């Protein structure tokens, strides 16, 4: 029976090819626009480490100016980074299962076998838990042990991309390389890893690529160099005559994350921060009201405004667009079905029940919806390609990877499985909803009228 209904549907499509094409186009366009905006929105709002959302917390403390907040647009938020001294104090705690204090530097690599020219790179100076905490995959080797958190151990971890540039992609563990003219031993090479948005450090934009190389946090003091990457923000007029003065200053420039497996450990960590805060306040620091936070990744992305208002607006507009497309489809279906009411009338007179007529027409709509979804995915893919092209900003002289600046937008070149699922669901549900009323209407047709010769 269903095969027969499908044949009838095909016949009906052939009867009005123009109208069919119009409907198909409208459904497909509506779906395409929705899917495009949702993919972009999803990429921006997605939590790239959702499976640890109840374990990972950004640590922030409001050490700012008593007379004004760090971010005037969000006066209730503490600065997104910590001072070196606060971060190092909290790093000493054994409450978190894992803890990371880190910052970014610009540096230069030399001595790779496959790379003749010195290579400018971004370096993450971080504690050893970074890799395990953020579930960073390794291709070769591993990170370093906790000794590197205090000592300047000359070990380095390379990203997959940099390993390809420097060593042609071979297992380079055990090789040496010069980092800012100091000798380092490669202990690990990462596999492809690009969390989008780059939640753990949003300084260079949510869509920036992960860092090129990683070295132990213990290097901070011996390097004796002011941070030249990321962001350094100071409010207090302090006398800074040495790098040690800087490390003791109220400037914020390090990011801190902790992994707390349960509520009890979270409360103890909060207690530790508040206790430290109270003690420091007695000594004259922390002039603002108490605002020490442990923020999970989802909330962090919201607080830091990663999803832009534009993206929300676009999703709204996409759904308005889909609504227009569907209204259009309802109108055309209604007209088309009623136009062919005579056929339905004859079938009713020959014994087809209202239900059967209804189902027959719904199957016609279903086929249309399925075709619309497939076409919509095609259009959507084209559209995404266009979106991606919009985000690539060409430079006149390609000294370095311009890809660096397009960063996570690379992710927008393809749909993820979730988007495809939603596309098909959206197409089916909405097109079927659009077909419900016309199919019902045609089922109500009184057969007798159409049996007359007129």
């Amino acid at each position, binding site marked *: 029976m269903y095969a027969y209904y499908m044949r009838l549907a095909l016949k009906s499509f052939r009867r009005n090819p123009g109208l069919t094409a119009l409907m198909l186009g409208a459904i497909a366009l509506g779906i395409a626009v929705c899917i495009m905006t949702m993919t972009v929105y999803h990429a921006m709002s997605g939590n790239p480490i959702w499976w640890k959302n109840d374990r990972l917390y950004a640590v922030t403390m409001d050490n700012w100016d008593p007379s004004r907040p760090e971010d005037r647009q969000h006066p209730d938020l503490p600065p997104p980074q910590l001072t070196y001294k606060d971060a190092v104090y909290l790093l000493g705690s054994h409450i978190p299962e894992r803890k990371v204090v880190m910052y970014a530097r610009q540096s230069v690599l030399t001595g790779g076998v496959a790379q003749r020219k010195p290579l400018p790179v971004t370096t993450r100076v971080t504690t050893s838990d970074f890799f395990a905490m953020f579930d960073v995959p390794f291709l070769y080797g591993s990170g370093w042990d906790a000794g590197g958190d205090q000592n300047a151990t000359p070990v380095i971890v390379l990203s997959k991309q940099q390993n390809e540039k420097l060593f042609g992609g071979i297992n380079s563990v055990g090789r040496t390389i010069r980092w800012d003219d100091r000798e380092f031993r490669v202990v690990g090479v990462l596999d492809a890893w690009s969390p989008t948005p780059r939640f753990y450090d949003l300084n260079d934009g949510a869509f920036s690529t992960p860092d090129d190389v990683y070295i132990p946090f213990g290097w901070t003091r011996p390097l004796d160099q002011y*941070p030249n990457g990321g962001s350094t923000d100071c409010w207090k*007029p302090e006398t*800074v005559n040495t790098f040690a003065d*800087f490390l003791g200053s109220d400037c914020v420039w390090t990011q801190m994350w902790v992994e707390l497996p349960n509520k009890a450990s979270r409360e103890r960590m909060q207690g530790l921060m508040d206790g430290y805060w109270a003690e420091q306040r007695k000594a004259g620091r922390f002039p603002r009201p108490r605002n020490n936070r442990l923020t999970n990744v989802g909330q962090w992305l919201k607080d830091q405004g990663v999803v832009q208002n534009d993206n929300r607006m*676009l999703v709204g507009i996409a759904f308005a667009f889909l609504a227009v497309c569907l209204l259009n489809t309802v109108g055309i279906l209604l007209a088309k079905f009623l136009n062919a009411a005579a056929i339905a009338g004859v079938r009713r007179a020959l014994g087809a029940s209202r239900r059967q007529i209804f189902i027959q027409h719904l199957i016609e709509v279903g086929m249309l919806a399925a075709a619309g979804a497939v076409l919509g995915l095609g259009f959507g893919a084209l559209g995404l390609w266009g979106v991606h092209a919009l985000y690539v*900003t060409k430079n006149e002289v390609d*000294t*370095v990877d311009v890809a660096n600046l397009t960063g996570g937008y690379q992710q927008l070149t393809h749909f993820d499985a979730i988007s495809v699922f939603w596309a098909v669901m959206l197409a089916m549900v909405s097109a079927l909803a659009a077909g419900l009323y016309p199919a019902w209407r045609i089922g109500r047709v009184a057969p007798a009228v159409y049996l007359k010769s007129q």
Partner: protein
Amino acid sequence: MSLDIRPVVSSLLRNRTGAVLVAFQIAIALAVLVNAVFIVHQRIEKMSRPTRIDDQNLFGVRTAEFTNRFNYDASVHEDLAYLRGLPDVVSASVSNSVPLGISGSATTVWTQPDNKGERAQINYFAMDEQGLNTLGVRLIAGRGFRAEEILPPVTPTNTADFVPQLIVTQAVAEVLFPHQNALGKTVYDSWGKPSTITGIIDNMIGTGWSGYEALDHVAIMPRMPRMYGFDYLVRTKPGRRDAIMRTVEEHLSTSNPDRVIQYVRSVEYFKKLLYRDDRNMGVFLITVTALLLAVASLGIFGLATFNVSARTKQIGTRRAVGARRADIVRYFMVENGLITTAGIVVGCALALAIGYWLSLQYQLPRLDLYYLVGGVLALWLIGQLAAWQPARKASAVSPSVATRTV
């Protein structure tokens, strides 16, 4: 001339569904069109803000030293001599950052010591005596810096040092000294160290921090940059920028083994990057709105075509009893006009509601009513145009149709 609305209305009321569907499409289309055009217009205004520097002919060279052998003074001297000696280079300077770029520095100044008086946050550029000429920013009052006034770079042992002279934009001057002449006045940094305003420049856009409180709160400091890395800024003769960029890249990347060139990029490139999201939003809004209008007008066209074909016999009858072709056309145009008008009425309410909601939610300015008027006219016109062809087709129905049985 009567428009004969009564019969059109009563016929519409008998077959409401199609008309209601089209009216809703028009309503949504109007609401989206008006708000989208409004938003796009704001973005275009933002993107066309003048930078008040010679942004088309400027480029930056970011260098990074990485060995202890690197000699800053010698290297900068050699590089600047090379850059300034190139044909078609108008001027070149060191700088701590590239204007409109993503990284830069800011500090706070006050009109009285001890953090009192008027306060301004300034995005500063540490440059040498060719700084103003390299930027191409207009000097409004005072003078630029002289070579002997340029201080050596800040080192870790004197980070708190201020500069004795400062050039500020008019915007900064107005914030610090409202209704006064700021030239020659003294400002203080957070440590209470004084500096004299020796020049006032046009309101140039500084670093491209999109969220910064005021992009034109900029100051120029007479100091060599170094501590957080530094750039060379080069201004070329019109049309020569790209060629010179290539030459410079080639030369500087091999001229000194103790440093690398991180990038050679035009200010125009950074400008594109700064406005990328606004431009993309504009492109997206225009595309979706255009598609939406196309779909809606196809809907109008489809409904009118269906109505015409469903009423062929009635049209023939009207023609047979004396209606002229023009009457038939008018009938369908009036019908379309009524549907469109109903849609527009609902659409106006929807457009205003969305505009109001957007202004609350995203701190946008309130929707300008001119946009609504324009949107109403546009949709009315689109509606009539979409119905025109089916109406013409209807008028071509022969009166003889009335006499046939089917």
